[in-house]
């Protein structure tokens, strides 16, 4: 099993979620994060104090999937999350050793 963790632009969340649903993903977990990368931030000014804000609001999306869905999932995210502008984000893929569904105790692929 694989665990895909994607950093995307926040306003793309709904689109990505629907694209994932289209390739059969039924569950996912979302976290508000702040990203630092090539995309430049902005400057904020509070009276005399000037702060450069490098961290931009991003959304992290975690999906645990079956190995054979990996390509579909990556493709779906890539397509739906892209705007073509710097800062579109990254997809990270991890091996997932085990999954358990708490409610039923099922594990492995069934638990996804």
């Amino acid at each position, binding site marked *: 099993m694989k665990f895909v963790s994607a950093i995307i632009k926040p*306003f793309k969340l*709904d689109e990505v979620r629907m694209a994932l649903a289209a390739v059969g993903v039924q569950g996912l977990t979302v976290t508000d994060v702040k990203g630092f990368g090539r995309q430049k931030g*902005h*400057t*904020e*000014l*509070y009276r005399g104090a000037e702060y450069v804000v490098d961290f931009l609001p991003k959304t992290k999306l975690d999906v645990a999937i079956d190995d054979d869905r990996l390509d579909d999932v990556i493709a779906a995210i890539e397509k739906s999350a892209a705007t073509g502008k710097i800062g579109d984000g990254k997809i990270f893929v991890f091996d997932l050793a085990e999954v358990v569904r708490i409610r039923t105790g099922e594990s492995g692929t069934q638990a996804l």
Partner: protein
Amino acid sequence: MQRILAVVAMLFAFGFALPAWAEGGGEVAASAVAAVADGGTANAVVAAPVPDKGDTTWLIVSTLLVVMMAAPGLGLFYGGMVRAKNMLSVLMQTLVVFCMLGILWAIYGYSLAFTEGNAFIGGFDKLFLQGVTADSLAGTFSKGVVVPEFIYIAFQLTFAAITPALIVGAFAERIKFSAVLVFMVLWFTFSYLPMAHMVWFWAGPDAYTSAEAAEAAGATAGFLFQKGALDFAGGTVVHINAGVAALVAAIVVGKRIGYGRETMAPHNLPMTMVGASLLWVGWFGFNVGSNMEATGVATLAFINTLLATCAATFAWTLIEWARKGKPSMLGAISGAIAGLVVITPACGFVGPMGSLIMGGLVGVVCYWGVNGLKHALGVDDSLDVFGVHGIGGILGALLTGVFAAPSLGGTGVWDYVTDTVAEYDMVSQVIAQAWGVGTAVVWSAVVSFIALKLVDLTIGLRVSEEEEREGLDVSSHGETAYHA
């Protein structure tokens, strides 16, 4: 930016220059308020009227209450309903619009609205408030009763400055800050000032000594005043006027990016609730202060403002509960605002049971205004300025003609010549009210449309897509509302 500042500067220069130029040819009209004082002296060697300190106090309080409506009231009410990334832009727009127009009011607004001119606009006698001192007096609605003119100017300033600020709700979350300012100067000058003059300008009660005098005095009054339209505290001048401008603005500016697809839920409803509550509290100044005296009628206006709001809040709660299954807090406070809007023109004319009924009705009608009607119009009036102020204002203007009837517990209309309540003809009164509504709708729509187009063609109305995505707080104002 440079260019924008230049435009703003130019507009200001215009504000300063125009009157100076005009002064030469301007006719030297006796102002309304002067008339009052003069009347006293002319008729007999009577003691000059002296303001009652209770009245003065009440007007001072009323005025500061309306300031509180503008800041923080309106800002919070609106601000809580936008997304967090645009919070400060809304606070900024309402505040700076209020302050800018407050300045313009002192420079030329008061003179154009409240000195004698023609039926549509006043004159230039009091540019820069010239001639007004701490001893100057303004008339009220009672013969021989006066108040210091400075507080009258200040009270009316708050009306003139908050009304345009209401429009901000229509194009929130996407408009350029510079465009807001320029549009507001235009709309204030060409829509608010004339409407205020048309509805409220008159020679004052002391001029109405006989039928002939009344006729002569009447001829100097504003267009809608002459038509006999009743507007106790600004249903027409404030709410219909701003509501219609909002509708036009929402159409011309266009929808927010993602409207209808992305979630645009209010980011902080408790703030909206605080704003609505402070609007309610301040509205007592707005409505009751419009009586200009702390009399029994003032207390009637007060209890009506209280009861209509209670009724509208409760009515919206019940209708939403019945139709959607759950009564929302945003609904309840929307009802409260609708109740305040509907009773604004009526508060000194109708009885308490009339205000309960008007409140109940507006709760239902404005509920439809922000649901059915809004979807039918398909316009992104972001914070429902038209649905609440426009619709509620129109309903209020018309119902004032109904419930002001003494037969329905209203006070009727005072005849200053006979010093009694006049015969009440409901049909003709409702027609007079309709004149007010119609004039406000057309005038405001036309001015708004032209002003917006002008702004669009010169400095542009909207921020770039990227700036809209990022949020106006950062992109237009360089700051963020919340940090950990």
